[in-house]
């Protein structure tokens, strides 16, 4: 039976029942007609649906911890007031139900009573009969029972010494560990997270799926765990990364979030940072924004004083080498041939150190040339602003005797602390006619089958990749160019052009950990 308090209450009640999936067909039709009536109605419906959706979303995603912690410390009196209000509403509803039912009953029986009364009146009975509908009796009994139950409930809730949830916040007990975080797996295609997640308690291990996972700590910190990574939840604002990669976003409320790594600890000071632990136990920390402190952890569990890492800085912890350091990214100072040097001028970064068949040759700066052979056109790839052809000094054109070997030298520095294993030199090399040798610090780096050892690489380059032989300090690269023999020509052009790709390197500056504890 519909209780028509007001039309507004009625539609709001209908929407509420819709949100609880309790509408019948008739009421649903009424609701739909109301929604279609106007944009304002549709908007009002959307607002209620959104509130409901958002509440459900926040509960499921455990995003309400910060709000439940803000709950006012309501007294039992207020809780009792809420219940009392509820009881009053219920009583009012029951009374109205009684009233309406009574009216219906009266309508049904009105005619019969009238007949009876008429008959009884005609008999001049002295007894007055009070007719009480049974529905009234049932309703009155229900109200009385309900009131008694409500009073009893309120009484039990306000008794001292009982477990009154309205008075005291629930403290975690040993039988009931504290929920620390929720683990969500990422959708393999979109990378988005759905579903209710897996609750994590102290000591629980979180393993990322093949598409990665997200951990929402109740402190507010959010950890992105990369595929094949695993970590242990060790505290409400702490985790232990044993292997793999993670990125942490720490809002101000969760400042101080800590990531334990082998031999170290990274403590947030309000930031976003990533940590990677490789199978050998070496950790790399990148600060994406804000600041962290990097601490050494000793074997007996002490945490030493920390060193700050700020935005865009990277740190490293290597327990086997007892190393705690800051990583600086840099580029090797390589210079391509003829870069930013006009034609005809000496190249400041490349020199010619040896010419075969000329023991009296004095080393000197190589000269930048236009690439034109002089007496005939040669298909040398034209110069660009980034690199140009160079030749031996001391003569006007690049033409040299057949079979001559010309050794070009380039010096460059590798800073102390550079991770030498991270250096991979890549270059595009044009040469007329071919490379007879290539060395780094005297070490040969050219195999006999390399394309540059064959001819015809002046129209398009061949690639030269060198990843060993480097040392800290000054390094020497030497490329020896051979001029091919031509039967009909005792002399022909010869030259070299090298274009380096940028070579990123990692420089580790070791930090000096203090022996004192934080």
């Amino acid at each position, binding site marked *: 039976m519909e209780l028509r308090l007001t039309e507004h209450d009625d539609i*709001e009640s209908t929407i*509420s*029942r*819709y*949100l*609880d*999936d*309790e*509408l019948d*067909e008739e009421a*649903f039709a009424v609701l*739909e007609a109301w*929604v*279609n009536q106007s944009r304002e109605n*549709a*908007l009002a*419906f*959307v*607002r209620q*649906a*959104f*509130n*409901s*959706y*958002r*509440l*459900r*979303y*926040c*509960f*499921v995603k455990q995003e*309400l911890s910060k*709000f*439940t912690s803000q*709950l*006012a410390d309501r007294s039992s009196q*207020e*809780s009792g007031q*809420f219940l009392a209000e*509820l009881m009053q*509403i*219920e009583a009012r*509803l029951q009374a109205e139900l009684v009233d309406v039912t009574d009216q219906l009953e009266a309508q049904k029986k009105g005619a019969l009573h009238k007949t009876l009364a008429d008959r009884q009146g005609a008999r001049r009975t002295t007894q007055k009969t009070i007719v009480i509908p049974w529905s009234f009796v049932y309703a009155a009994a229900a109200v009385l029972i309900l009131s008694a139950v409500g009073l009893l409930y309120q009484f039990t809730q306000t008794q001292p010494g009982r477990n009154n*949830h*309205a008075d005291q916040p629930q403290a975690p007990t040993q039988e009931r560990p504290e929920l620390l975080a929720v683990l969500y797996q990422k*959708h393999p*295609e*979109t*990378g*988005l997270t*759905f579903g209710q997640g897996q609750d994590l308690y102290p000591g629980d291990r979180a393993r990322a799926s093949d598409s990665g996972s997200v951990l929402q700590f109740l402190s507010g910190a959010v950890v992105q765990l990369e595929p094949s990574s695993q970590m242990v939840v060790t505290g409400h604002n702490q985790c232990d990364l044993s292997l793999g990669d993670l990125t942490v976003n720490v809002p101000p409320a969760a400042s101080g979030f800590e990531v334990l790594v082998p031999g170290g600890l990274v403590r947030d000071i309000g930031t976003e940072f990533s940590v990677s632990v490789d199978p050998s136990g070496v950790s790399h920390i990148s600060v994406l924004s804000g600041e962290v402190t990097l601490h050494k952890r000793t074997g007996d569990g002490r945490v030493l004083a920390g060193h700050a890492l700020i935005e865009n800085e990277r740190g490293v912890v290597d327990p086997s080498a007892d190393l705690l350091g800051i990583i600086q990214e840099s580029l090797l100072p390589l210079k391509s041939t003829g870069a930013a040097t006009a034609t005809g001028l000496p190249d400041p970064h490349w020199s010619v150190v040896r010419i075969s068949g000329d023991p009296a040759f004095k080393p000197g700066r190589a000269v930048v040339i236009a690439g034109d052979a002089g007496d005939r056109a040669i298909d040398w790839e034209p110069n660009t602003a980034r690199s140009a052809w160079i030749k031996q000094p001391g003569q006007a054109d690049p033409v040299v005797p057949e079979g001559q070997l010309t050794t070009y030298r380039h010096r460059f520095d590798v800073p102390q602390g550079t991770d030498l294993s991270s250096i991979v030199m*890549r270059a595009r090399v044009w040469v007329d006619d071919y490379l007879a040798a290539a060395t780094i610090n005297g070490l040969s780096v*050219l*195999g006999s089958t*390399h*394309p540059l050892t064959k001819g015809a690489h002046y129209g398009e380059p061949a690639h*030269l*990749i060198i*990843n*060993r032989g480097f040392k800290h300090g000054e390094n020497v690269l030497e490329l020896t160019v051979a001029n091919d023999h031509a039967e009909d020509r005792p002399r022909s052009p010869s030259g070299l052009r090298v274009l380096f790709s940028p070579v990123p390197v990692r420089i580790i500056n070791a930090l000096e950990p203090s022996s004192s504890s934080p």
Partner: protein
Amino acid sequence: MFLAPAGHQAQPVQDTTQMHTTHLKDEFAKNWAAAQPMVGAYISSVVRDYHDAEDLLQQVAVIAFRKREDYQPGTAFVSWVCSIARYELLRWQRDKARNRLVFSDKTVEILAEVQDVFETELDDRQEALQHCFGVLDRKAVGLLKLRYKDNLTPEQIARQTKMKPVSVRVALHRIRQLLEKCITDRMTRGVEVD
């Protein structure tokens, strides 16, 4: 071996194709995170069952992700995704045609039309909802938790709390009324309402 073998072409230092793909993926994730409340609300206003709505939301996310290159940057991402959601909702409605308790296509379209207006108040409404939730008392929060986290029906809540089903329904209705009033007041006047 420290030298590239014969015929090997060295990889370029930067793979621009891969960078573009990664950038699109990151942009989509960022846009989706902002749009999800709107899209979720739209879907759940039509699809009453929570699990059906979640499945549909995930489906829309996957379709939108696959079509991410069709999205024109600078245009309204929410509108673009809602248009995908509208088609999926209509398709879902076809499947549920035998169920009379689904909105008509006309109603689905009308609900989609008001999303543009609703989007303008979304941020304020979310903030207001968070604030207004924080001033509810524990009993109310407990009821909401049973309804929304544990997904219990009013009947089930009544059994668990030893309340009468009608009491639970009335309580939920009152809580929703209080929340909406608080939200409206906060959005219009910024006044704290207990």
